[in-house]
């Protein structure tokens, strides 16, 4: 979105700096003046919420690292030491732990927003791909972070999840040993996970920079999905969206604080308050809630496919469930961005959401149990099929056969119509 910066250096010093490093000009252009569609709804506040959460995690994480000891004999007690003896430690630790959940909650909303409003379509493909990369980085970071308190779930999640790479032919075993730093999950594993858990958030921050850069080339998509046509369609980012985002962040903090202060362990698992013990396997090994849908897909493949055994099949589907997201911009063949104008798409989309929640539920259920009277193993297969079919079959075909509703000519006009509809409702 080409636009002139309105920055005028106020005095000689500012001018001097501006000629050498136009950082103030840059900030003004991107954080203040940036023309933003005026019809963005609250689903568009989650990008800002995510940026806020990243800062929260990094700040609390750095403080935790000052008091944490990455050693198998001391890690568990050092986290307890933070909770008990460090000033404000119980709150800082809870913010970080609950924060991970809130971060994922926000990222799922952010992604589902993109999937509904077609934000991944041209010219925003790279923006979307960077987003998927961010999600993969977040998953990796959170997984490693969960190992650090060295509770039973930490240890067994690390064991089970690293173990899945062993299914890869030829290179599987060497990779497994590299990941663990030995033959079993032990002190070396804990140390490298700590090191990487400290590193990755900064990689995420860098990719967020690229993500926002890629956003600022085409500018935001919007709920009606038609391009910005004139300045009538936009408002400057500041104060309009800074204010709206700030409000959303404060609202987001309410449930966040609810968990931190009143039930900091409610989103976690009691078994992680038992120190890791390689001799005792917990009755149910479950990942954190935000991994459950993908965990269900991993478990769903419990049969051999030709020469591929079930273990490798599980890994392929698990990796595939993430990789397929990279290709969504090309799998969706519809020219219409916003789901609001796609009468058939809507149904499949909401079914996809329900299916995703169902996968999470299945991921949390015992593998030999029943859900709604259907064996978990079978139910997981059905949901896995729909997960992939949505991307690989439904999105490509819908673009061909669906007749979209007429699009408004511009954002401004869609806004006017919307107001008229409201007025009509009010008078009737």
């Amino acid at each position, binding site marked *: 979105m080409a636009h002139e910066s309105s920055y005028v250096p106020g005095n000689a010093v500012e001018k001097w700096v501006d000629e050498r490093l136009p950082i103030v000009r840059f900030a003004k252009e991107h954080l203040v003046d940036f023309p933003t569609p005026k019809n963005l709804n609250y689903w568009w506040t989650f990008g800002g919420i995510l940026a806020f959460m990243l800062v929260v995690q990094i700040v609390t994480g750095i403080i935790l690292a000052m008091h944490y000891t990455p050693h198998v004999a001391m890690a568990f007690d050092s986290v307890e030491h933070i909770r008990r003896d460090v000033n404000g430690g119980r*709150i800082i630790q809870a913010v970080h732990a609950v924060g991970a959940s809130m971060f994922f*909650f926000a990222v799922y909303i952010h992604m589902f927003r993109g999937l509904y409003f077609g934000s991944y379509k041209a010219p925003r493909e790279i923006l979307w791909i960077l987003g998927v990369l961010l999600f993969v980085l977040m998953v990796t970071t959170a997984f490693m972070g969960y190992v650090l308190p060295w509770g039973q779930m930490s240890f067994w999640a690390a064991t089970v999840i690293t173990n899945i790479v062993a299914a890869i032919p030829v290179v599987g075993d060497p990779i497994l040993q590299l990941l663990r730093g030995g033959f079993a999950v032990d002190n070396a594993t804990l140390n490298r996970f700590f090191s990487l858990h400290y590193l990755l958030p900064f990689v995420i921050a860098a990719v967020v920079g690229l993500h926002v850069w890629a956003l600022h080339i085409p500018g935001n998509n919007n709920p009606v999905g038609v391009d910005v046509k004139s300045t009538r369609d936009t408002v400057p980012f500041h104060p309009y969206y800074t*204010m709206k985002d700030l409000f959303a962040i404060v609202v987001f*903090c309410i449930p966040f604080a609810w968990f931190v202060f009143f039930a900091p362990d409610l989103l976690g698992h009691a078994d992680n308050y038992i120190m890791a013990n390689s001799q005792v396997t917990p009755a149910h090994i479950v990942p954190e809630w935000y991994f*459950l849908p993908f965990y269900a897909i991993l478990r769903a493949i419990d049969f051999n496919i030709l020469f591929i055994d079930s273990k490798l099949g599980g890994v392929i589907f698990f990796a595939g469930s993430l990789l397929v997201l990279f290709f969504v911009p090309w799998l969706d063949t519809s020219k219409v961005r916003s789901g609001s104008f796609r009468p058939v798409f809507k149904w499949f989309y909401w079914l996809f959401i329900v299916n995703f929640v169902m996968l999470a539920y299945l991921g*949390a259920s015992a593998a030999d149990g029943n859900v709604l009277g259907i064996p978990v193993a079978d139910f997981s297969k059905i949901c896995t099929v729909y997960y992939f079919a949505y991307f690989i079959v439904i999105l490509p075909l819908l673009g061909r056969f669906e007749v979209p509703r007429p699009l408004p000519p511009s954002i401004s006009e869609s806004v006017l119509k919307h107001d008229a509809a409201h007025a009509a409702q009010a008078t009737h």
Partner: protein
Amino acid sequence: MNKIKSILSALCIGLIAAATPVLAAEAGPEIKKEPWSFAGLFGTYDQNQLQRGFQVFREVCSSCHGARLIAFRNLSESGGPEFTEGQVKALAAEYSIADISAEGGTRTAVPADRWPSPFANDLEAAEANGGIAPPDLSVMAKARNTSQPFPWWLLNYVTPYAEGGPDYIHALLTGYEDEVPEGTHNSDGTPFELPEGKYYNHYFPGHAIGMPPPLSDGLVTYAEAENGTAVPMTVDQYSRDFAAFAMWMAEPHLVARKESGLQVMVFLIVLAGIMYVVKRRLWAKVEH
């Protein structure tokens, strides 16, 4: 319509968040939620109860169980049992602590010392207890939980329910049976048989626990309160008091945390209100 959808989809994702506890379902009757003084937004510990719970721990449980994260001094800190510093000093002096720098390898404990473990190591502990080491009780109240059937566990996020541990401990300590109840079966349908050296407990996963029933009515003598009211000296009361004490051991700053939580919530809600008004004013000039 759109609003409803929006809310529905947010709920959906909330549901994923909530799906986690489904799995804890374990054999045994459902565990009742007890009315704890420290539950809920305004919960605080009952100091007298914590003192009684400590007495139960000290007189009964500590002969087998350790509490390695608890220092004597914690017992006088605010928000806990709040014994006086003099009491804690005297209490510590009754114990001796292994210390290689001291003459003879042991010395008298001081308030800064951690609670001494009854056994030198897990191996010794297991040997003295029929092959299973009694677990450390410092964070026991958070290392166990209860489970509710769908959809009731959804309520836990709203109430919010963080007392699964104490509920389990209370149930466990009151859940012993002298004889295996008539008609008890294993999950595969074969009749249940109690292994040698185990005890039947309704709530312990698998029912066969290695801990003999530690409590009996009248086992611990509670001091009479100043106003003359007597606390019942029953297994149920001991269990309740110990469970509360266990929660304090696991969450020593619970009261302070909840107090600041209330302030933070009020602050956030007021701030959100102000922000909303400002945002509306600002946007009033823009058709959107």
